[in-house]
């Protein structure tokens, strides 16, 4: 397969403009339905009562936090190995979204934990590794923007994103490897989910909604970056045209 067939920014602009309305409408519909099911239809938990409704925003945010990082690392690998021109843009566009999901996961988890465990925060393996994930996102963003030359920043960021991927299995298996206050997996586990279908369905719909929301904003942000690149090219060519028309003035300024 020729990857560079998809590397053409003009092709990406066409493809993304066709996809955007569908992704956006799908995200709005799924999150709308998901919120309705989560708040009105899903039953209260037999132990946690109504507080379990926090799950329907906490779990999708937590999964997206890891998923977006995995995608960012994949895009970084493609950027480093094949120099695919859209890969760096994809990774950089995904990072703030991933940071947002991680922040959401941390704060909603804190609210849930205060009620169920009696503490806002503990330094157990799951909570700490997710906090590390949040700092990885912030570090990536700071690093990419720290260089005057965008290419070097993107390269340094890509390496950081790849090194940081070691944190993902730690997050996933932290609840099995260590004694954590956080509960073990109840959806993706051997032997099937342990949560009831009446809660699993609203959760699945919210997760799909969050995924489409991410896809929509990823496309919008990538399009923005490509348009900004085009603006830079146009401005540069304008400056060159002015310089060619009046060379003495250009030297003086």
């Amino acid at each position, binding site marked *: 397969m020729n990857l560079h067939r998809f590397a053409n920014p003009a092709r990406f602009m066409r493809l993304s403009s066709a996809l955007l309305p569908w992704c956006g409408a799908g995200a709005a519909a799924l*999150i709308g339905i998901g*919120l309705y099911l989560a*708040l*009105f239809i899903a039953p*209260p938990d037999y132990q946690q*009562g*109504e*507080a379990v*409704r*926090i799950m329907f*925003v*906490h779990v999708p*945010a937590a999964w997206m936090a890891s998923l977006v990082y995995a995608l960012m690392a994949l895009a970084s690998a493609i950027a480093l190995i094949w120099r695919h021109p859209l890969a760096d843009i994809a990774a950089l566009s995904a990072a*703030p*979204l991933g940071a*947002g*999901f991680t*922040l*959401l996961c941390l*704060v*909603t988890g804190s*609210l*849930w934990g*205060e*009620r169920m465990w009696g503490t806002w925060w503990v330094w157990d393996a799951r909570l700490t590794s997710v906090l590390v994930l949040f700092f990885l996102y912030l570090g990536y963003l700071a690093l990419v923007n720290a260089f005057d030359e965008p290419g070097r920043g993107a390269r340094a960021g890509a390496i950081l994103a790849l090194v940081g991927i070691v944190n993902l299995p730690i997050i996933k298996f932290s609840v099995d490897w260590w004694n954590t206050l956080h509960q073990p997996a109840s959806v993706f586990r051997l032997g099937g989910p342990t949560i009831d279908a009446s809660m699993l369905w609203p959760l699945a719909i919210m997760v799909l909604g969050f995924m489409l*929301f991410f896809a929509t*904003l990823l496309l*919008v*942000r990538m*399009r*923005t970056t490509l*348009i*900004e690149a*085009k*603006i830079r090219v*146009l*401005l540069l060519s*304008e400056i060159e045209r002015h310089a060619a028309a009046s060379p003495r003035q250009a030297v003086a300024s």
Partner: protein
Amino acid sequence: MSEAIARFLAMGGYAAYVWPAYGLTLCVLGGLLWWSLASYRRSRRTLERLQGGREP
């Protein structure tokens, strides 16, 4: 009716935890949406101006 609404809002005594969680979700997702769309529109307007009103 208003009793049902009050019961719903009370969230079985967990209102102070459930509603901030949903409120923050709305703020974070809404904030990302607004920020992304605003910079998208700004870049499109700039490009259109540079191209003299032609389609980007």
